[in-house]
């Protein structure tokens, strides 16, 4: 049962449109109901080979030796891949954004840091033969101590999970072992609060569990290119990753996808394309590499667990004066996308509420479990669970109806948010009012009268007079790239990059010149339609750095087309 409440914000909309707003039938629905929608595995190749991985039974172990001789001799086995076969066997996904240090092998060769980590890949005529050969690979393990709890992992003396980050914490901005938020002075506000409400919230990992498991099929294509049918959620991101790991110019890859059996965030990690293409390169035959359901559940990267501590200082009338967060993201054995998720979650704090004092330390922590990745609501779902459960406790502490408490503290147009940007286009109050009305819950008069368009700004729109800063968590001697690095290049207006065929220049390895000019706070960053003309971007310095060879950054080059 759904209703569209057109009366809300009607003056901000011109509803007289031609095709927008219509319940037009999905373009892909006929394919879905006839079973003809072309998912990655719905392509037939003569002589298709099948790939299965040999996986670590240990949480943490050094690899002394991998003996593949017996497996090599098994019936139907065409080739056995190990780390040695991977041209560049070290990568981190966000290196394409120049963020983070390459920390994860495609096929582990020196050590394994989570149960299920792949150390070899069998390529055979049938999947059954590949599975049989996997059991014949002998690995000489040296089991190491492991750590699975985020707070234990960052205590001195804990086992080092990821060799790149010795303290089991990702390093932000080449300076801190966590991402900070400092806004106002929470300790001063706690001192004058009538109530202090504290809570600890814990998420466990969950699986994206798309009904179609992750996979790719790669095959040689004419003029020494490779076609790759893939279940990826990010075609060029996967293509760029494969180009880097296989040190191959990106235009020799022809990726085809676009029809995916559910992604939910679990199909960005680009593990399958490089292995499938490597198989096609080394055997000259089409190769399929896909997870079975058990692998999707226990080896496929889940939504990572998060642990949040929240402390609120609340006035007697329910106004929240201060909110302090400590967050631990369980990134698992490698970084993948978790470093980005933490910045996104910090930008989300303290939730859709105007709170004058906010303090946060959020850590990206490494533990000996399957590395985490994105999932629906990446970086936000976990902290929203914590915030809204906490708000319920605050409501009880001040004996207030939970919905009244939300409306009282809700952000309004013109308010200053903790990431120091003005709140615009708000609608939290109206949503609360509609639900209260439908559920028959009587609100206070002030709540019923409230609006996102009124009573915002003014005093609530100003930056805090004083913000308590600190150097807690400083780290030296490690540089994790220039992504979103503050360079102090103030003064240039925020603008769009307009020129068609724009190729994002590869960031120079030294000097960290930003690929983009940063948006100045408060500038009207975008007009109603995006077509404001701007001057072309500076040509990027040649990529002399050794960080990446052959990998493409964001360009499309035409080639042989195959449907």
């Amino acid at each position, binding site marked *: 049962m759904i209703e569209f409440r057109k009366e809300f914000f009607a003056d901000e909309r011109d509803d007289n449109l031609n095709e927008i707003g219509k319940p037009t039938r999905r373009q892909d629905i006929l394919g879905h109901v*006839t079973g003809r929608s072309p998912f990655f595995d719905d392509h037939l190749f003569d002589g298709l080979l099948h790939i299965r991985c040999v996986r670590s039974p240990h949480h943490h172990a050094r690899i002394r030796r991998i003996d593949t001789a017996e497996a090599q001799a098994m019936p139907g086995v065409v080739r056995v891949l190990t780390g040695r076969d991977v041209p560049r066997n070290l990568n981190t996904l966000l290196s394409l954004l120049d963020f983070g240090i390459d920390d994860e092998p495609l096929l582990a060769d020196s050590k394994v840091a989570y149960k299920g980590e792949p150390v070899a890949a069998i390529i055979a005529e049938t999947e059954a033969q590949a599975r049989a050969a996997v059991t014949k690979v002998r690995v000489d393990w040296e089991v190491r101590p492991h750590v699975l709890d985020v707070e234990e992992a960052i205590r001195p003396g804990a086992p080092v999970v990821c060799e790149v980050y010795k303290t089991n914490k990702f390093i932000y901005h080449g300076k801190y072992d966590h991402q900070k938020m400092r806004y106002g002075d929470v300790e001063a506000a706690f001192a004058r609060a009538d109530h202090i409400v504290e809570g600890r919230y814990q998420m466990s990992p969950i699986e994206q569990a798309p009904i179609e498991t992750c996979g790719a099929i790669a095959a040689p294509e004419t003029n020494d290119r490779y076609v790759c049918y893939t279940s990826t959620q990010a075609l060029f991101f996967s293509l760029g990753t494969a180009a880097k790991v296989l040190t191959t110019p990106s235009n020799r890859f022809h990726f085809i996808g676009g029809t995916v059996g559910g992604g939910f965030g679990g199909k960005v990690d680009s593990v399958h394309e490089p292995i499938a293409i490597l198989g096609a390169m080394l055997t000259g035959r089409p190769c399929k590499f896909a997870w079975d359901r058990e692998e999707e559940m226990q080896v496929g990267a889940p939504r990572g667990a998060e642990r949040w501590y929240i402390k609120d200082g609340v006035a007697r009338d329910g106004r929240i004066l201060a909110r302090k967060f400590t967050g631990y993201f369980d990134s698992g054995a490698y970084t993948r996308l978790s470093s980005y998720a933490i910045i996104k979650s910090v930008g989300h704090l303290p939730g859709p509420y105007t709170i004058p004092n906010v303090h946060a330390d959020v850590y990206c922590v490494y533990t000996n479990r399957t590395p985490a990745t994105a999932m629906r609501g990446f970086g936000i779902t976990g902290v929203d669970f914590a915030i809204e459960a906490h708000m319920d406790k605050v409501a009880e502490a001040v004996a207030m109806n939970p919905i009244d408490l939300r409306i009282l503290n809700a952000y309004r147009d013109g308010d200053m948010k903790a990431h120091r940007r003005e709140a615009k286009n708000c609608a939290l109050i109206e949503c609360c009012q509609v639900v209260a009305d439908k559920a028959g819950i009587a609100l206070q008069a002030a709540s019923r009268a409230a609006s996102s368009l009124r009573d915002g700004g003014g005093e609530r729109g100003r930056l805090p007079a004083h913000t308590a800063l600190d150097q807690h968590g400083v780290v030296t001697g490690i540089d994790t790239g220039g992504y979103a690095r503050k360079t102090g290049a103030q003064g240039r207006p925020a603008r769009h990059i307009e020129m068609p065929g724009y190729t994002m220049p590869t960031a120079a390895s030294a000097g960290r010149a930003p690929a983009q000019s940063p948006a100045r706070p408060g500038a009207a960053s975008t007009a109603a339609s995006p077509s404001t003309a701007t001057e072309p971007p500076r040509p990027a310095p040649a990529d002399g750095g050794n960080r990446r060879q052959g990998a493409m950054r964001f360009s499309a080059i035409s080639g042989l087309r195959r449907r």
Partner: protein
Amino acid sequence: MAKTPVVFVLNGSERAAFAAPGQNLLELLRRGVGDLSPKYGCGQGTCGACTVAIDGETHLACLTLAESVAGRRVDTAAGLASGGQLHPLQDAFMQTFAAQCGYCTPGMLISAKALLDRNPTPTREDVVEAISGNICRCTGYEPIIEAILVAARGRERA
């Protein structure tokens, strides 16, 4: 390894393919005869994406030995439409937006068809039971249940 020829009727027409020992029906249908409508979701009999009908009864193709369908009738989603006309269930799924990614849809349609063939006027509870062997991760089931009820009502009038 000695392969076994398997001759069976697929969506009304006789087909043949060679089955490797221990190969399941899902692989035979997809790689053997090229019917790509049943999908792999788990290979464990728990998701229903590979649901097909064998002699009119729903089965999980991934848990069915390929050789066991020799001489039997296998029906898949690819065979639902006939003479260019979509099956009422296919129409209903389209009208009620009962698919998002579409990966579970072929299996859902076969389970729904088996229900309507047996019980043309199902209650909501009958529909819920009929699709209880088919997992959908996108829709939250409500539109699928509604589509099957819409198709049942449609058949009543037709």
